């Protein structure tokens, strides 16, 4: 009888426990729904003419143009200060300068040297499929086309699977695995990144690291493997955390890589690597946006506590300017919630697609 009573008491405690879990999960979620956070992060671009960051901030449905020194500009002035960012508007108004820093400006040239890159922890922190599409990078056609196969990584090589028959293409698998090994690649693959989209001008294939932490580039050229060892001369890299393959219109770069000490490097088209002059970048916790033009890249990082803005030289990647803006203090609504609901449980998060319990 006593055992039965204790069982019932256990179930009662269990129900109370489940009720508490539901409360610490749903009440903060309900509060956030009723009192949403309306603060917005401004959009920031580096002005090569003013040597300062210009921010576009929407206040009361009006876009305001300011710099970090507190100067305010009209839209017309902001366009003039950002001739490469606002070149379409300047062309329309007949205000595009003929040259800048001794370099002739044409819309086509500006467009060719414009580069955008954006990624966030949420895009990266998700389960990988484990299947990759290697496009033909020299088909002789203007448009890229999907290949008839995909590949998977195994401990001893890479394995191409024919889509129509759902069987392994042994000859192609062996050919690509052997070609990689010929360049000193030691399987298994540790990290891999490629952009399988056909909506781009050309294909840079995949960047991948081997079990010895060396970086390689793999492409398919006329159906055959093309491999290059990425030279890390002058860079002190012991390991890699994240790889990105990019295809900028000027074809000067192959990718961006993040070392395990959170340093960002650019992989140039000649297979060399250059450190990008920012303090650090942790792809697991920071959102990054790069807006590049002929002269500078504006690199914006959003972390959990601040926004970091860097301007780097587009050729040497040396730092030109830097600003770190701490996030505003928690709003009254946020402080009320922290006081009233000191323990909060979330299953979804801004930095991952994975569902997992997280206490705040």
């Amino acid at each position, binding site marked *: 009888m006593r055992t039965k009573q204790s069982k019932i008491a256990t179930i009662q405690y269990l129900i109370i426990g489940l009720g508490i879990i*539901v409360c610490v999960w749903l009440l903060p979620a309900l509060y956030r729904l009723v009192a949403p956070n309306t603060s917005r992060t401004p959009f920031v671009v580096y002005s090569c003419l003013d040597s300062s960051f210009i921010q576009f901030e929407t206040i009361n449905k009006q876009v305001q143009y300011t710099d970090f020194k507190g100067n305010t500009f009209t839209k017309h002035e902001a366009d003039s200060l950002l001739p490469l960012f606002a070149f379409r508007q300047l062309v329309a108004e007949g205000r595009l300068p003929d040259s800048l820093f001794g370099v002739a400006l044409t819309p086509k040239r500006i467009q060719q040297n414009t580069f955008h890159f954006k990624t966030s922890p949420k895009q990266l922190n998700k*389960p990988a*499929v484990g299947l990759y*599409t290697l496009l033909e990078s020299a088909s002789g056609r203007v448009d890229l086309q999907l*290949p008839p196969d995909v590949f998977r990584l195994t401990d001893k090589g890479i394995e191409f699977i024919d889509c129509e028959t759902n069987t392994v293409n042994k000859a192609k698998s062996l050919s690509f695995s052997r070609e990689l090994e010929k360049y000193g690649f030691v399987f298994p693959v540790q990290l891999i990144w490629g952009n*399988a989209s056909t909506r781009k001008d050309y294909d840079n294939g995949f960047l991948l690291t081997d079990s010895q932490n060396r970086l390689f580039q793999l492409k398919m050229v006329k159906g055959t493997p093309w491999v290059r060892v990425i030279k890390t001369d002058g860079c002190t890299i012991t390991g890699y955390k994240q790889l990105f393959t990019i295809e900028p219109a000027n074809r000067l770069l192959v990718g961006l890589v993040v070392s395990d000490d959170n340093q960002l490097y650019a992989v140039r088209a000649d297979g060399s690597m250059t450190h990008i002059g920012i303090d650090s970048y942790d792809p697991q916790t920071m959102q990054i946006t790069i807006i590049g033009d002929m002269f500078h890249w504006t690199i914006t990082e959003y972390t959990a506590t601040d926004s970091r803005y860097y301007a780097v030289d587009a050729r040497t990647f040396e730092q030109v300017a830097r600003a770190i803006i701490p996030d505003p203090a928690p709003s009254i609504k946020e402080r009320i919630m922290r006081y009233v609901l000191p323990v909060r449980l979330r*299953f979804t998060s801004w930095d991952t697609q994975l*569902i*997992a319990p997280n206490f705040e």
Partner: protein
Amino acid sequence: MLRAIFYKEWLKLRLFWGLAVVVHIALIGYLLLSLRSTLLSSGVVETWATMIGRDVLMINQLAYLPLITGVCLALCQWLPEMQAKRIRLTLHLPIDNQLSIGAMLGCSFIGLCLLFGLDAVLLAGFGQVWLPRELVWRTFLTCLPWYLGGLIGYNIVSWWVLEPQWKIRCVNMLIGAPLVALCFLTTQPACYIQMFPWLIGLLLCTACLPLYSIYRFKLGKQ
């Protein structure tokens, strides 16, 4: 005595089980035919590329079927028992109440697992003809929280129906409904991989809740 209980459950639920098997086979068949049709009309290469590159698995119609099955089973199993308090007959059998109710819950739980297992076998068996093993495994990982949601939903609704007092029933639903919703927070493929131990823990916790309602029923709560 337990064999008699199982026989009684079979007589009560055979129509439900027959209908559930037909509905599950029909929906899985529809999904497989739909996948085959997409592969033939859009092309295998393009379909694979979409599934790999855009995180699409074409099984979203399946999401709430296990939950609906679990909820309907609980209603079909326990509503007749609660009508005119027929469950008192079971509780007066010369057998431990927890054992008799546990046997009734257990045979439904096993039945649901077999039904959900049938879905998995059909999906994996036919899926691997057209898809690589990575996509079949990803499909399984995506469906698994939905099926756990079906089992948890069965426990929660059983807890709710067996509860003798309406005001406590309302509290039970306020606690139970969000717990079921935990299994449906995203349709992104394989994103529940870190949640499986928690959901299995929740399933075990909710499994004993109907016994508490029976305890309250025996206490004579009205």
